[in-house]
C-alpha cells in the first residue's frame, strides 16, 4: 500500500543533513514491476519502549539485507539506541537494560543515519511493518521536521494472504513464530532485533514462494 503512495522523497533530501538518510531519500525507488529475484530488500526489526510511535522510543535496531532470493548474512547489523529515556517495563520483553543502552547505545541521529544508509535503494521488509515504518518516520519527523515515505513489504500481510480468509483462524496465527512454524522454519530465540530481522527475512523467502510472488508490486500489495 505504502509502496504506491509516492511522496516526493527526493524533494525532501536537502532538508536533512548529508549522510545515510539523504542517500535514502535521493535513491530511486525500484518500480513495482521489478522481479523479486532482482529486488533489494532490507529486513528491519526495532525493539522499542512501547507500541506508540508518538510517545515511545526505539531501543535497538537489527537489519539484514535480502538480495533477490538470498540473505547475505554478512550484511547483518545491530546496535542499541540511547535516547536518554528509560527502558521501563519493555525490558521484560526484550531484556535490554538501561545500563546496556547507556553503555553501548548510539544516538538517534546516528541510528537513523545507519538504518537509512542501509535502506538506500532498498525496500523495507518487516513483520507488521506499521511499527518499523511508524517509528522510523516519526523519528525523522521529530529530528528534521519532514514527512518521508518508506516503500515496504509486510510479512504479516503476506502471511494473512497465505492463511486465506478462514474465519476460525486462531488469534495469533499471523504472529511471526506461528507463520514460521507453518512454513517449516526453525524456531529462534525471539526478541533480539537482529534475530527477529533474520526470522522475518527467512519467512519472506518462504511466503514469496508459497504465494508464487513474482514482482515487488505483488509482494507489496496487502
Amino acid at each position, binding site marked *: 500500500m505504502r509502496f504506491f503512495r509516492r511522496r516526493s522523497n527526493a524533494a525532501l533530501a536537502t532538508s536533512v543533513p548529508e549522510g545515510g538518510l539523504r542517500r535514502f531519500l535521493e535513491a530511486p525507488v525500484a518500480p513495482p514491476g521489478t522481479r523479486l529475484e532482482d529486488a533489494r530488500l532490507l529486513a528491519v526489526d526495532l525493539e522499542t519502549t512501547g507500541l506508540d510511535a508518538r510517545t515511545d522510543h526505539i531501543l535497538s535496531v*537489527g537489519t*539484514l539485507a535480502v538480495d533477490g*532470493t*538470498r*540473505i*547475505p*548474512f*554478512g550484511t*547483518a*547489523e*545491530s*546496535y542499541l539506541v540511547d535516547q536518554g529515556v528509560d527502558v521501563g517495563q519493555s525490558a521484560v520483553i526484550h531484556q535490554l537494560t538501561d545500563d546496556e543502552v547507556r553503555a553501548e547505545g548510539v544516538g538517534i541521529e546516528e541510528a537513523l543515519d545507519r538504518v537509512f544508509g542501509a535502506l538506500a535503494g532498498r525496500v523495507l521488509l518487516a513483520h507488521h511493518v506499521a511499527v518499523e515504518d511508524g517509528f522510523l518516520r516519526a523519528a525523522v519527523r521529530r529530528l528534521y521536521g519532514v514527512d518521508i515515505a518508506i516503500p515496504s513489504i509486510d510479512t504479516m500481510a503476506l502471511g494473512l494472504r497465505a492463511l486465506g480468509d478462514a474465519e476460525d483462524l486462531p488469534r495469533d496465527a499471523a504472529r511471526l513464530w506461528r507463520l514460521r512454524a*507453518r*512454513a*517449516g*522454519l*526453525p524456531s*529462534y*530465540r525471539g526478541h*533480539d532485533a*537482529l*534475530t527477529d530481522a*533474520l526470522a522475518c*527475512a*527467512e519467512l519472506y*523467502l*518462504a511466503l514469496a*514462494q*508459497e504465494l508464487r510472488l513474482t514482482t515487488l508490486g505483488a509482494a507489496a500489495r496487502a
Partner: protein
Amino acid sequence: MSELAETTQFLAGREPWSLLPPGRVAALARRASGSYVRRGTVILAAGSSPERLHVIRSGAVEVLDPDGELITHEEAGACFGQASILEQRPSRFTFTAIEDTLLWSFDADVVAELVQVPEVLRFFTQSRLSDAVKSLPDDAPVLQVPVLEMLTRAPVTIDASATVGEAARAMDRERISAIIVTSGDRLAGILTDRDLRRVVAMAQPVDTPLAEVMTSTPHTIDAGALALDALLSLVENTIHHLPVLDGERVVGMVTSGDLMRLERSSPLYLAGDLARQHDVAGLAEVMGRMPSLVTRLLRQDATAEDITKLVSRTTGALWQRIAALAEERLGPPPVPYCWVALGSLARQEQALGSDQDHAFLVSDAVLPEHEPYFAELAEEVTAALEACGFPRCDGDAMATNPRWRQSVTRWGQEFGAWLSSPTADAVLNSSIFFDMRPIHGEQTLFTALHRRVLAAAPGSTRFLGHLASHANDIEVPIGFLRGFVVEKQGEHRDRLDIKLGGITPIVDVARLYALRWGLPQVGTRPRLIAAAEHGAQVANLLDAHEFLGYTRLRHQGRLVAAGGEPNNFIDPDDLSDFERRHLREAFAIVRRAQQGVAVSFQTQFMS
C-alpha cells in the same frame, strides 16, 4: 560488526564448525547466505558443478544417485556440496528437498579455507555414518526399536463426519500424506494421498463424506511392536502408512519414510538374515549381497574404517552361524574350544575378496579320541566358508591343518618358540598369528593365550628386530614415472598394488608397536592410537591408512559394480588428480614410517 547469534550458535554446536578454533565460527557465519527451497526443488543435480557448500538449517534433503536409487536422507545440520568442490568434479548425486528446506550456503572459497584445518578436511572426507555406528551398542539391531519410540508427533486426526475437502485441507495444512479418521476415540479409518487421487480421478465432489472414500479397516500396528514388524507389515501389504494403536487409542502413525530413515541399519538386515538361515546355501545367498552393501556404504561416503568394520562384523556373524549349524549336525563339542579368526578379519579390517585364515584353540582337557570330532568340525566350517565365497588359504593357515588345531598349552609353546628363536616362517606367519580374535566358542581359551603372548613379546628383541627388518623389505610403490611404481607384467601390468605396497606396511608397523609394548589391541587403528601413548608418531599414519583403505574399497566397489571380482590392483589413470596427489602423499608417509621403525628397532634390538 554484529554477530548473528542464531547462525553462530547453530554452527558452533556441529561438526565441522566445532572443529575450528574458537572465534572463527562467528566470522565464517557472516560469509553464509540463507535461502529457502520448497519441497520437490532440486538443489544440486548430478553432473552439475556445485558452487556452494550447503548446510541444512531445517527441512530434509534426499540424495539420489544418477540411476535414481536412494542413497540417503540428510537432515538439519548436514553439509553437502563440499566433496565435489574439493575434488573439482561434478556432483555424483542429485540433492532434492523433500521438505521445505532452509539452507545456509557458503561459497567455494570458504570450503578451501575450511580444509586448511586438518580436522575439518578429515570430517569432510569422512561421513556421519561413523557417528551412527558409534552411537549404536555393538550389534544392536536398529529395527529392534519399539514403534512407540519412532513416533515424533501426535497423530493428526479428523472426525468421520467431515468431508473429503476438509480432510484434504487438513492434510495440506499439516503437510502429511495420510490422515487418521476417528469416530469418537476409536479409529474409524485412514485417508491417504492415494485415496485423494482416486477422488480426483473419479471427479467426486469435495463435500463427499469422508466415510465414503476412506479405507475403513486399515492395517494397524501395536505401540509395543518393533520397527521390524512395522517394516514387514508395510512391505507385505504394499502400503505406506500404519496407524499405531495403544489398546484402542490411536497414538500416532508410522510411515515408510520413517523406516527409510533407519536405513543405515541395512548392514544389520544382513546380519539378521544370516541368523535366520538354516543351511549353507541360504548363508551363501545372503553373503552374495555383501558387495552391493559395500558399494552402497561407499556411496554414502562411509569411511574405510567403518566399512571394513561392518564387513568384518557381518562376516563374524556368518562364522557364528556356520559354527552353530555344524555343531547342530555333529553334536556338541566333547571339550570346550574357541574358533579364532586370524589376519584381517581379526583386525576387523576385512575388505572384499579375502580368503579365510583361522584356527581352533582347544581346551587342555582334550583327549586323543576327541581329535576326529575337531577335524570333522574344521572341515565342515572351512567348506562352508568356501561355499560362502571365502577361498581356502593358500598357506593352509586354517583349522583343517592339524598344526592350527591345538590345545591352548601347545599353542603357547608354539608362540614361545617363534618369539625366542625366530625363523623366516615365524616372521612371515606373524602377520596372521599375532592378529587373532575369538569368533565362536569358549572365549576364555583365547584370552589366556593372548595374555601369555603379550607378556612375552616385548622382551623378544631378536624377533622384533626381524619383524622390523621384514616390514622395511616391502617396497612402497613411489616412483618417478607418473609418481608410481606399477606392476611390470602379468595380469595387473601397469597397475599398483595398494594393499601390499601401502596398507600391509602400515598394518605391519602397527603390529610391531603392539608387540613391542605388549598392547592388547588387535585392529591397526586401535594399535596405532595406543602406540601414540608410548611416544610413537602416528597421526600421519592413521590418515594414510584411512585414505589407502578408502581408495582400495572404492576401487573394489567399482570392480564389483562392473561385474568383476574385487582385487587390490589400481590403475593410476583411473584416479583423479586429487586422488593421485593424496595417494603419493600417503605412500610417502608409509615409506617414512617403515624407515623409522627399521632404524629404531634394529639399532635397539639387533646391535
